[in-house]
């Protein structure tokens, strides 16, 4: 223990001690900001979930009239926007904000004030977005806001304007956060923690930062152009004035496809932490898991037009984007195989976190495989814009990102709160979520093949459509119940949960080397880092990873 090293140096910011709400508002501590991210993301998760339930209620039976068509369109627009920009992204950012400095043995983020600014811009963007409901109606142009439908001529209400301003705020905050993560990870690692020894969650956060730095300016620029179109009649995207409707789609998806990976890479990181810890083994093929993420990040910028195979591009463009899109399956497959191989020969502890991680392997694989059927562009011509697509991306984003988020929540909650979530309730929540999720979305594959288009507020009573929609709606309500159970369980654990201790999972990365929750300065002393699993090395000095690797 004599070689404990000093925690990484972070700029000393003297913040006056405050109490209560004021303390949270003025905080520049990465742990408190991380918690703020997580709480606000949870709140928006509930709102977005409620919107999903309105959608599923309206689609329960053909020719239902629970809500007006206009309201329905607002619901799916806000559901998509909320879940992407106000839940999945900030939730994962919240985990990164809390955990990354701890994992690299740092005192805080590189730019603590910028960190606070990122969060408050994020929340402010969310508030602007939702303010539209009381300021003339939320946008009903879809989260993709295709032009010219989102232009003033077809969406005259201010909803789209609030949507643009809200997303621009979030975009700027996220961009600042991405720079902050990149600098933190590159500059503030504790001595001995080389890039090749970084925990994979940190690796994914680093790769993700670069994805954000390159992708978000694209959407921010496009949003500015759309705003100028709407306020000053610039006609950038308006064919009636000589603009191009398709140009918007190129901008949107050149951001939008990397965005998909922005939402999944940190979840990959969580899975890469959870599976080894609960299999009691190191990650299989560390270098390949890390390198395949870099490959995915590069490729993600070359595939955006696979969202546009139905637009009527040239055969050559279709072929190029089709092949590029299929290529992403290779690094993704490498990850799935390595995670599965990590379980091989392990002593797997099926905690709730591990159950979500294991379920992720199956559900994300379904989403990934159905994704290949969109990369094969002639199939995309039949499948796109049907419920098959809705099923596909929910398997990726719910069965992937959200299952990853749940795994991360169960895994890190003890570190953040000092208390364990109930494993008994957790297992109920897992099974309700897993069954509810598959009930909701699996049947949508078939519904899509049967020809049901997306974004319709009702449907004709064609054979089988009613039954399949009813199954999907029942699953959605089950899922809603599982989420309520999850929220209740969190409150229950905060007051009555079992005390966690420093390292309840016997994990090996640095965040478990300090108290739960960690003190404001994070570490008194950081353990020495000679490998990827410093706490394993500390417990087994005679079988340290580096020694084993060298022998």
């Amino acid at each position, binding site marked *: 223990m004599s070689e404990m090293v000093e925690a990484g140096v972070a700029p000393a910011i003297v913040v006056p001690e405050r109490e209560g709400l004021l303390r949270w508002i003025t905080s520049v501590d990465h742990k408190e900001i991380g918690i703020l991210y997580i709480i606000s993301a949870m709140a928006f998760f509930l709102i977005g979930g409620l919107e999903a339930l309105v959608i599923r209620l309206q689609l329960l039976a053909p020719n239902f009239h629970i809500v007006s068509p206009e309201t329905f369109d607002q619901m799916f627009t806000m559901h998509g926007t909320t879940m992407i920009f106000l839940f999945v992204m900030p939730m994962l950012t919240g985990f990164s904000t809390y955990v990354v400095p701890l994992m690299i043995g740092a005192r805080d983020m590189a730019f603590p004030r910028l960190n606070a600014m990122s969060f408050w811009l994020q929340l402010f963007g969310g508030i602007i977005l939702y303010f539209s409901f009381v300021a003339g109606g939320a946008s009903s142009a879809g989260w993709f806001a295709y032009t010219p439908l989102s232009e003033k001529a077809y969406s005259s209400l201010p909803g789209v304007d609030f949507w643009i301003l809200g997303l621009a705020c979030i975009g700027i905050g996220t961009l600042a956060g991405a720079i902050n993560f990149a600098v933190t990870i590159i500059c503030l690692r504790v001595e001995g923690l080389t890039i090749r020894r970084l925990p994979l969650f940190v690796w994914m956060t680093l790769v993700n930062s670069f994805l954000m730095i390159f992708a978000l300016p694209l959407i921010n620029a496009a949003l500015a152009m759309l705003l100028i179109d709407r306020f000053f009649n610039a006609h950038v995207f308006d064919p009636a004035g000589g603009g191009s409707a398709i140009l918007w789609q190129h901008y949107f998806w050149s951001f939008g496809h990397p965005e998909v990976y922005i939402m999944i890479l940190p979840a990959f990181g969580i899975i890469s932490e959870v599976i080894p810890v609960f299999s009691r083994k190191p990650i299989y093929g560390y270098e390949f898991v890390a390198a395949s993420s870099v490959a995915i990040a590069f490729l993600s910028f070359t595939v955006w037009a696979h969202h546009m195979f139905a637009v009527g591009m040239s055969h050559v463009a279709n072929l190029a984007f089709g092949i590029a899109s299929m290529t992403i399956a290779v690094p993704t497959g490498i990850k799935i195989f390595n995670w599965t191989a990590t379980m091989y020969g392990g002593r797997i502890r099926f905690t709730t976190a591990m159950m979500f991680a294991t379920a992720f392997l199956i559900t994300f694989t379904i989403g990934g495989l159905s994704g290949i059927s969109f990369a094969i562009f002639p199939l995309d011509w*039949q499948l796109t*814009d049907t419920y098959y697509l809705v099923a596909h991306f929910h398997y990726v984003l719910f069965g992937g990102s959200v299952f990853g988020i749940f795994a991360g929540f169960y895994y890190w909650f003890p570190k953040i709160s000092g208390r364990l979530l109930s494993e008994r309730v957790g297992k109920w929540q897992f099974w309700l979520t897993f069954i509810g999720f598959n009930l909701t979305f699996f049947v949508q594959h078939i519904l899509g093949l049967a020809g049901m288009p997306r974004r*319709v507020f009702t449907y004709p009573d064609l054979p089988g459509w009613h039954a399949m929609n009813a199954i999907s709606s029942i699953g959605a309500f089950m899922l809603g119940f599982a989420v309520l159970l999850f929220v209740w369980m969190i409150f229950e654990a905060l007051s009555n949960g079992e005390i966690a201790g420093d390292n309840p999972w016997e994990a090996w990365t640095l965040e478990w080397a300090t108290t739960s929750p960690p003190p404001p300065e994070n570490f008194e002393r950081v353990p020495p880092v000679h490998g990827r699993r410093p706490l394993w090395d500390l417990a087994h000095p005679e079988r340290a990873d580096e020694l084993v690797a060298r022998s």
Partner: protein
Amino acid sequence: MDRIPVLAPVSPQAHALSALLIAVFFVLLAIFLLVTGLVTFMIIRYRDRPGAPEARQIFGWNTLEVIWTLIPIGILAIFSVFMISADRAADPLVPPGRIPDLQVVGHQWWWEINYRASGVVAANEIHIPVGKPILIDLRSADVVHDFWAPRLGRKIDAVPGHPNMLWIEADQPGTYMGECAEFCGVEHTWMRFRVIAQNRGDFDAWQRTQLATPLSPTAPDAIAGAKLFTDKTCVNCHAIAGTVANQTVGPDLSHIASRVMLAGEAAQNTPDELFRWLKQPDVIKPQSHMPNFKLTDDEARELVAYLEGLK
């Protein structure tokens, strides 16, 4: 299989797509079963049991990494070959100088259909002769729409300022569903259409009736309806051959009685439903561009009598 239109093709174009879909499905299913099988094996075999020894610390094996990199690349290479051949079959190149058979224009929220050779103008119901590849020149009058008749061919967007070409075809007579597949605003739901494939003789007969000027009404209520059609400003948006009505903002009504559906398939074309549509368009298709003229029951009945006579 008729319930799953993408697997019930009736044209060579759609057939290429469904064959590809089935082939790809089985390969993907095999991969899925492999992954699920492996994960299930790990779950059962390596579950922690009391007294089990510590797990052996394995870090990886490069040979295995190479194997599971190369095999997927091989599978994807095969998919690429399939992809290229299906592309050629489902979306054949348009021979230079080939004039489209139809011009289809997407409007919020209905389809305008112009037969280039005969000059027939129709809406939402596309009659085609059996066994002949039909080339469609697809356009949009406002926002992005998408033309999709899954049993006849691929889907493709109708983009303002960017005309697209599309082949459809039907091997056998029948009625085939179609829909707008790109979100195009509040009534995107009711922008459905149908393709009615007919034998040559039936198709020619249909074209002849569509080209004929509809007979002037003779019954008193229908005559009153015809007058209302002008007085109530229906003529500002619609066209009826042989009358002063010649606008193309809304669907051409010259032969409305020959259609099966109304309002992008939001309603059946029966006298009762047409009556409801005229009285309360905002209930049947809220926010569609068809205004509510606050017609009295008598006025609506007279208009129905007139319109249902336009065979």
